[in-house]
């Protein structure tokens, strides 16, 4: 697989990462997402990483970049489903994902996105 699918749900985009990503795949996702946000004037992006069993500094940086990028393109990003072991490792690695919104699961993430968009 050389692309991670991006699903559209109204004014939101949904991404579920279900493969062990190599670096190029992460970069492609970043590009695809920014193009798609622009194309449909998306208001929010939800990234589900519950299937990821590690997040290293490269993927961590990708998540921060997507979040920053989408903010500039007038969309909110919420990252959901990070496994506890991944969160512990990420903090110890030195990455805190500051500025990235998170929620425990997809349902709460969608709720957060809707609230954010409504309050604008």
């Amino acid at each position, binding site marked *: 697989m050389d692309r991670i699918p991006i699903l559209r749900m109204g004014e939101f985009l949904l991404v579920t990462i279900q493969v062990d990503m190599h*670096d190029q795949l992460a970069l492609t996702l970043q590009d695809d997402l920014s193009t798609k946000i622009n194309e449909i004037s998306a208001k929010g992006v939800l990234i589900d990483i519950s299937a990821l069993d590690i997040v290293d500094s490269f993927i961590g940086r990708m998540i921060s970049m997507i979040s920053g990028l989408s903010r500039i393109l007038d969309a909110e990003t919420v990252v959901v489903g990070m496994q506890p072991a991944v969160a512990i490792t990420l903090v110890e690695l*030195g990455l805190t994902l500051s500025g990235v919104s998170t929620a425990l699961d997809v349902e709460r993430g969608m709720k957060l996105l809707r609230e954010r968009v409504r309050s604008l």
Partner: protein
Amino acid sequence: MTTRSGTHAIRSEQDVVLSRQAVRKLAIECGLRLVDQTKLVTAVSELARNTVIYGGGGDMDWELVEDGGRKGVRLVFRDEGPGIPDIKQAMTDGWTSGNGLGLGLTGAKRLVDQFDIQSAPGEGTRVTITKWN
């Protein structure tokens, strides 16, 4: 004491993924709990990426080790790349010679129990890590 050992080639991004998967299996085999598996595999991802990007490719030697009652995984990442001129600088949080975050080496060190790095200009780099259960 070494109970089993082997070598994986690390030449491409795909090899980085494969080395993560191989080490995950080894970590499970020697009874590391989930958090420690995750830490070890994350350290592998950082070091294997360094081997590809900065070392121009290399190898990862793996060993299942035993010391008294405890078991562990020991890994050596080695390349014949340009080497690191200033190891002290390279082991500083936030310092990067490329365009990364500068967390690879220092972060990997924090995630394992033992960490050793040997490198000199023109002589490649050799990083040894161990995680005990």
